[in-house]
């Protein structure tokens, strides 16, 4: 299985949301990391045939996915960022309906619905209306609908947005479990979502993929170094303005700062192993972090 993005570009008027992206994907988990507005959702929507590229194309096994039409979408499971549903439907009816438009035969649809309701932990809520579910339960219903057709390609757009930490961990584990023998593309602006489960990470900025590779490659190839140092509290603002600070831990009259910098920020600063959070800070900058990024 090979999904290929060939010089893919999408423009909305004068704004270029996705800018000449060329990539190849096979089985495995791909983490698409970028701040809001980076073009992640547009890229995913093109992968789901929801919008047509302005130029370039996407091919599956060498054939244009738009020409493959239903034959391509048959392989697809998609959880959009803004997961809409039919509020008056019960969870079970919702899944049965989605199963029907995915072309599953009624008997298969019933079996898959039952299996997935159990798998995502919604057994007790199966007869509840979708509108009465909590945010986390809705997301779980969302992943269940995406998995109904046992998709070869699973596309998850910001699947953990708005979830509390427990739900996020649970969701991450669920995705990890579901990712075997399929291609999973997971977009997020939450670094920890993909840090441990992605085989390959793509960093997206301004519609372009600016870095790609395994976690170690992304982190290891970062041109700057990560330091930990302790400063007096009154110097914290100065340090934040001068350096990229990826973390700050307050102590009694001092603060421990984690700094991404090419040079040693203070004589007593200790060099530490960089993480994906540090790389995120390096590539997307502090401003992006303050606006959009949850680490």
């Amino acid at each position, binding site marked *: 299985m090979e999904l290929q993005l060939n010089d893919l570009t999408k423009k909305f008027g004068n704004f270029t949301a996705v800018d000449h992206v060329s990539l190849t994907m096979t089985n495995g988990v791909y983490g698409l990391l970028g701040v809001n507005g980076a073009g992640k959702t547009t890229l995913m929507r093109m992968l789901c045939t929801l919008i047509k590229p302005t130029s370039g194309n996407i091919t599956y096994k060498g054939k244009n996915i738009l020409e493959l039409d239903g034959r391509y979408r048959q392989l697809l499971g998609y959880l959009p960022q803004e997961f*809409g549903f039919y509020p008056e439907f019960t969870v079970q009816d919702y899944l049965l309906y989605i199963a029907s438009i995915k072309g599953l035969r009624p008997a298969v649809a019933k079996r898959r619905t039952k299996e997935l309701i159990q798998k995502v932990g919604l057994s007790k809520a199966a007869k509840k209306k979708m509108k009465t579910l909590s945010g986390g339960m809705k997301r779980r219903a969302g992943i269940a609908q995406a998995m109904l057709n046992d998709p070869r390609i699973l596309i998850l757009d910001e699947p953990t947005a708005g979830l509390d930490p427990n739900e996020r961990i649970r969701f991450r584990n669920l995705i990890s479990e579901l990712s075997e023998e399929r291609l999973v593309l997971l977009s997020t602006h939450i670094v920890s979502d993909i840090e441990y489960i992605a085989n390959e990470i793509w960093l997206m900025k301004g519609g372009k993929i600016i870095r790609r590779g395994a976690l170690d490659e992304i982190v290891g190839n970062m041109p700057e170094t990560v330091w930990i140092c302790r400063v007096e509290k009154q110097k914290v603002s100065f340090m934040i303005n001068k350096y990229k600070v990826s973390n700050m831990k307050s102590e009694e009259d001092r603060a421990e700062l984690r700094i991404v910098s090419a040079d040693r920020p203070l004589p007593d600063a200790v060099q530490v192993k960089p993480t994906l959070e540090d790389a995120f800070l390096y590539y997307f900058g502090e401003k992006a972090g303050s606006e959009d990024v949850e680490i």
Partner: protein
Amino acid sequence: MLKYEIKKVFLKGRNKIALLLLAIVLLAVSVMTVNRVEYVDENGGHKTGIAAARNLREEKNKWAGYLTEDVLRDVYRENQAINSEYASGSMEDEDKIYQKRQGISSIIDLINNANSPWREYDYYAIDSITEDQAADVYEKRISGLEEWFASGKETFSREQQEFLLSQYKNLDTPFYYEYYDGWAALLQNISTFILLLALFIGFFVSGIFSDEFQTKADAVFFSTKLGRNKAVGSKLGAGFIIATAVYAAALIIYTAAVLLILGADGAGCPIQLEMWRDFYNATFLETYLLIVFGGYIGMLFAATAAMLVSALTRSTVTAIIAPFVVLCVFPFLSRIVTLPQVCSFFPDRLLDIYNGVRDFSLMQIGGKVIGIPAIIILVYTAVTLVLQPIVYRVYKKAEIK
């Protein structure tokens, strides 16, 4: 798939309320229709309802049978007798005359119509004519039309005049008569009910396409295997089934309620008993079926327009307005714009076939003369059919930006 599309519509709170309102409208229109049939008792009291209809039916069915010249003469004489019995002119006597005449009132109407100036109705015509003139109603219907043509007060072409005359001459006479007031009342209110019904149905189907966008369920919908083909077809199918089922159910309930209370006699009587100048040679039942079918096509057209707007604009509110524009703004326009020929082709005319068959609304295509109701039924059937693949295509091509 289809089942869930239909379920989506009727699980919505707004549609549940609309369904309840439709039930209230159905009840109100049924009561109004039933109250159209009145029976005046011996004390002059006006009564409505099952008992009143039963009494009136008994009175009228005493004269059931073919309205031959002999029967018309008998009615004439009966009317004279009633007039002479209560000749004082007092209010009490007027009530008595009305009460006594109830059994023959429809036949008197027929005689009055035949002996009134064209397009007018002289309520007292029977009192100023001879027995022979009263017996000559069928011939007078034809000669009245000929005289009207000769007067030059109309603008029909020679072919249209010939068509109308031929329709008049082809009408089977003598008329078979029996109590038909249940059907008459039903037909008088049916156009209003069909209009309201079409607006309700437009409301029900207006969200079928746009609600996917409104609820943001569109992304999942269009990313599924059948989301850009069969699932779109199932939405169209759901719209058609909902429109047809609601229309049929509401009209069956309305018709059954009215005819059960007022009586279903007279289905086979000619519609000319009620609409004297109607050139469609049909019975009450046939006219009812034509009205219902015309209304069905008009309703389907309005519902399809709502679905098209729903698919195009992705806004349910805008889609709800579409049937109002199609069915209510056009007739309003026809009142302020003097384009009678064009107005006859507006879709609202489909919902008012009752008045369409009363008028001499004709069209000539080549040498062939056809009634406009028949033409608009054909035209809007074709337009509605053509719109289906357009709605399908618009929705199938939707992009989620």
